[in-house]
């Protein structure tokens, strides 16, 4: 199984070139609604007075991703997000559907199970794939699991868009609060629904 990272842990990571230059920091994580593959990161400047940058970093240009920095070869590989998404085959330049943090999670039987507080990303190897494999949710009262955040696995062939995120009812059987055990939960869930990776 891949290394699992919380999206919030990636936010604000500095982007450093091979030359050691600290050229930007991560802002948004952009992923495909039909499969969960991370396609790009939007960027922001590093100084106190900087705002968002007009360019983004394609996942394919990431050389290394660690707990303290993202390594790229050179900042010349930064490109407008629309161009990166168009290269990736996203129709219409991928205007996006907004931030999923705070979105309601529903099962396919129509039960609200909570609100997304973070997104779990599985990174296979440097230069490999990064996929959204689960959500961290603030559980709904109806779930009867208290207020501690829970992790819920997603199918590999998920489809997500809009303000509500729909997950299979079977995923609720694999809820856990332990990120270290979550990789096994994702594998077990995907095996159950016939999606062994």
């Amino acid at each position, binding site marked *: 199984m891949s290394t699992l990272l919380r999206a919030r842990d990636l936010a604000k990571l500095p982007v450093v070139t091979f030359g050691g230059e600290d050229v930007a920091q991560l802002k*948004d994580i952009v992923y495909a609604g039909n499969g969960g593959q991370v396609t790009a990161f939007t960027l*922001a400047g590093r100084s106190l007075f900087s705002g*968002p940058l007009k360019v983004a970093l394609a996942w394919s240009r990431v050389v290394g991703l660690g707990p303290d920095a993202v390594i790229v070869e050179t900042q010349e590989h930064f490109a407008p997000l629309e161009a990166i998404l168009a290269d990736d*085959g996203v129709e219409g330049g991928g205007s996006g559907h907004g931030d999923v943090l705070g979105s309601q999670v529903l099962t396919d039987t129509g039960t609200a199970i909570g609100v997304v507080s973070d997104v779990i990303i599985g990174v296979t190897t440097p230069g490999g794939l990064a996929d959204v494999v689960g959500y961290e949710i603030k559980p709904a009262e109806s779930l009867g699991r208290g207020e501690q955040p829970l992790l819920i696995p997603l199918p590999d062939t998920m489809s997500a868009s809009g303000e509500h995120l729909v997950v299979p009812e079977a995923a609720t059987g694999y809820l856990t609060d332990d990120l270290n055990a979550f990789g096994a939960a994702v594998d077990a869930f995907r095996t159950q629904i016939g999606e062994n990776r």
Partner: protein
Amino acid sequence: MQWWVWLIIVLVVIAVLVGGFIALQSKRRSGGVVITDKSRRRGGSA
């Protein structure tokens, strides 16, 4: 008013404006997790 009172007022206004701008930019730098359009071109690389 004395000249130094005006000086203090100007400095305070500048400090508030700069502080506000820095706070605004800090908020704009904070990120999230964004879903892109789920429809894809035919033949687009996945």
